[in-house]
């Protein structure tokens, strides 16, 4: 089947474990050389925010995990532009390798994928 698998991350981070499960899946797909794509939308975009400090506990920052994705050959992460607006997030706050997509571009990303996994 043409295209690459797309992991869609749309759950709230740090509230339930679903976002973390999706990132685990993304990293496994990358480790198995599937060259996965990843799309953040909805409240899932909160996972992209950088902490200025760490809370006083050994809680991993998802942004740090996400920043490490290029090491796993995930060169681009896709972000739904409308969701950024909904949550008041500016593009400057995103990792440098994040690309914002309008609805038309999201549709073509979805259409080009081999499979979708929804977290």
């Amino acid at each position, binding site marked *: 089947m043409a295209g690459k698998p797309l992991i869609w991350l749309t759950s709230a981070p740090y509230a339930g474990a679903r976002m973390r499960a999706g990132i685990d899946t993304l990293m496994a797909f990358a480790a198995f050389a599937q060259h996965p794509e990843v799309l953040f939308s*909805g409240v899932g975009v909160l996972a992209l925010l950088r902490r200025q400090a760490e809370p006083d506990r050994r809680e991993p920052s998802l942004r740090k995990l996400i920043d490490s994705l290029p090491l796993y050959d995930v060169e681009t992460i896709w972000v739904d532009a*409308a969701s950024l607006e909904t949550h008041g997030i500016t593009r400057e706050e995103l990792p440098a390798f994040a690309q914002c997509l309008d609805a038309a571009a*999201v549709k073509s990303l979805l*259409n080009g994928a081999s499979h*979708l996994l929804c977290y």
Partner: protein
Amino acid sequence: MTLHCLNSDAGSDLIERLLGWLDAGDAVLLLGPAANVARSTHPALAKLLAGDHRLYALDDDLIRYGVSPHDHRVEALGYDAFVELAAAHRKQLLWR
């Protein structure tokens, strides 16, 4: 061609986002609490019916949530038809 499964009756924001990503040839299937959107009196139903995509609901969930009768423009499906729908669409998105 994507099958959009909607599994929540959480409000109009989610439906707006789904509609924004809906492409020609896509279909929408109402599951779980979203079965309630299939009632003729639901304020979000008109939005979901606009456009030329097909709108379905799982019959088990129509029964479960007491949606009877459902709006005649929503097609009720059993699991067998759900499988056919999934086979007819290359991909599935789950909205909740």
